[in-house]
């Protein structure tokens, strides 16, 4: 019971912080908008060409935007000392990390996923493709945050955070990128995306099961 209360408290704290500091979710959204809107200048404005690259640009753009939130996971708390509370809590650290990841994923995945269909208009994508893209972004962002939790927990005690986070995290997001964008490509060519979606869900569940444990171990290592 008390574990549930503790996890809820962590979750609620994060959501309140997000509600108070709008830049935490508004900045990634802005980044997403800008990244997706500069690509046409590089490749040309013909609808045919844009439709070909649109899925990839939107998906990668959403992932990169979500990357921006990773320092929020532990860095700030390490600076102001509130990380100690998390670490000294009698509750299992992995569960508390999961609660925090859930809050950040929710506060980030929802705006990004809602924006995806709107930005898909830039790329002349049909509405059913835009819909499935929003769904796969909803799955991909938590996967990235889960993997990113390990990296940012390790980097609490290290120098040179942001670029190193990208080097560590992005290669591990390739499966979700392949399956997520693959599902949208299937819909674009009029086929069923069921297999890709199932695999993307599987990778998400895999990350969900292992990443909080690994992130807890990582946090113990770096604050040892």
């Amino acid at each position: 019971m008390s574990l549930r209360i503790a996890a809820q408290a962590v979750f609620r704290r994060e959501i309140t912080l997000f509600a108070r500091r709008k830049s935490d979710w508004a900045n990634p959204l802005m980044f997403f908008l800008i990244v997706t809107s500069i690509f046409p200048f590089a490749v040309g404005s013909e609808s045919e060409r844009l439709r070909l690259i649109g899925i990839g640009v939107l998906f990668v753009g959403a992932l990169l935007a979500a990357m921006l939130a990773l320092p929020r996971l532990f860095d700030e708390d390490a600076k102001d000392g509130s990380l100690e509370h998390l670490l000294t809590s009698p509750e299992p650290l992995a569960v508390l990390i999961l609660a925090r990841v859930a809050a950040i994923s929710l506060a980030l995945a929802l705006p990004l996923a809602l924006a995806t269909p709107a930005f898909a208009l830039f790329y002349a994508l049909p509405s059913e493709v835009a819909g499935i893209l929003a769904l796969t972004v909803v799955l991909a962002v938590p996967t990235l945050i889960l993997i990113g939790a390990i990296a940012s927990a390790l980097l609490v005690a290290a120098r040179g955070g942001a670029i190193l986070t990208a080097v560590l995290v992005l290669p591990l997001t390739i499966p979700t990128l392949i399956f997520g964008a693959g599902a949208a490509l299937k819909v674009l060519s009029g086929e069923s995306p069921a297999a890709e979606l199932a695999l993307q869900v599987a990778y998400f569940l895999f990350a969900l099961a292992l990443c909080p444990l690994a992130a807890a171990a990582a946090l113990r290592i770096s604050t040892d």
Partner: protein
Amino acid sequence: MPRTEQQSNDRFNGKWFWRYASPAAFYPVAGTIEKLCWFLAISLTIIGLYIGFFRAPTDATQGEVYRVIYIHVPAAWMAMVIYLAMAFWCAIGLAFGTRLSFMMSHALAPTGAIMAAISLWTGALWGRPTWGTYWVWDARLTSTLILFFLYVGYIALAAAFDDKKKGDRASALIALVGAVNVPIIYFSVQWWNTLHQGASVRPGGSSMATIMLTAMMIMAFAFWAYCIAVAMNRLRTQIIERERSAAWIQSSVRK
């Protein structure tokens, strides 16, 4: 809490191999292994390249360019094997708190990255005349590229810590996370590959003559020996660096 080496030693007392988990005890052993492996690496390379270039005939379909595989295939194998070895030592290090295991992993990583890079580079130069392109997004090439990224991430993370002990365990954890993901990444890349390109061209798919295969296997053993020799050298350097204030290092430095 990590066990200290002393505790670990007590725990595993009576096992002869545990003695060699101590850097001081392993230092001379590493030197012997290094010398032996240098000898093997050099002699096997001479034999392998002699057979490969002066005994093995021209390939019927690929012409002379197939001779790149004598180094391409061994480099690709070593890139994979070294990552597995690294992950193994990282797991041992995290489980038992042995410093030497972490050092072993650090000693292997740069060579693994070089092997991955060599395998990509030679693969591109082999692919151009054979497939007509330097690069295809084939499952093997793509996986090797990602493997290279994993090596780079491991090395960069280990270097980002001022506290060496923390760096050891942090980079060990990321190596294990990578090792768990490698099969998944390989599977997903293969899935993606068949989705976009249909059946992919496979390097070395055609059957090879025995003499070519012999030369390649000898070169593979030469690569093994080279990698072990280099790793042992790097390991000894790390032992000197980390134990520099210990009496036994001081006495051997001053000799």
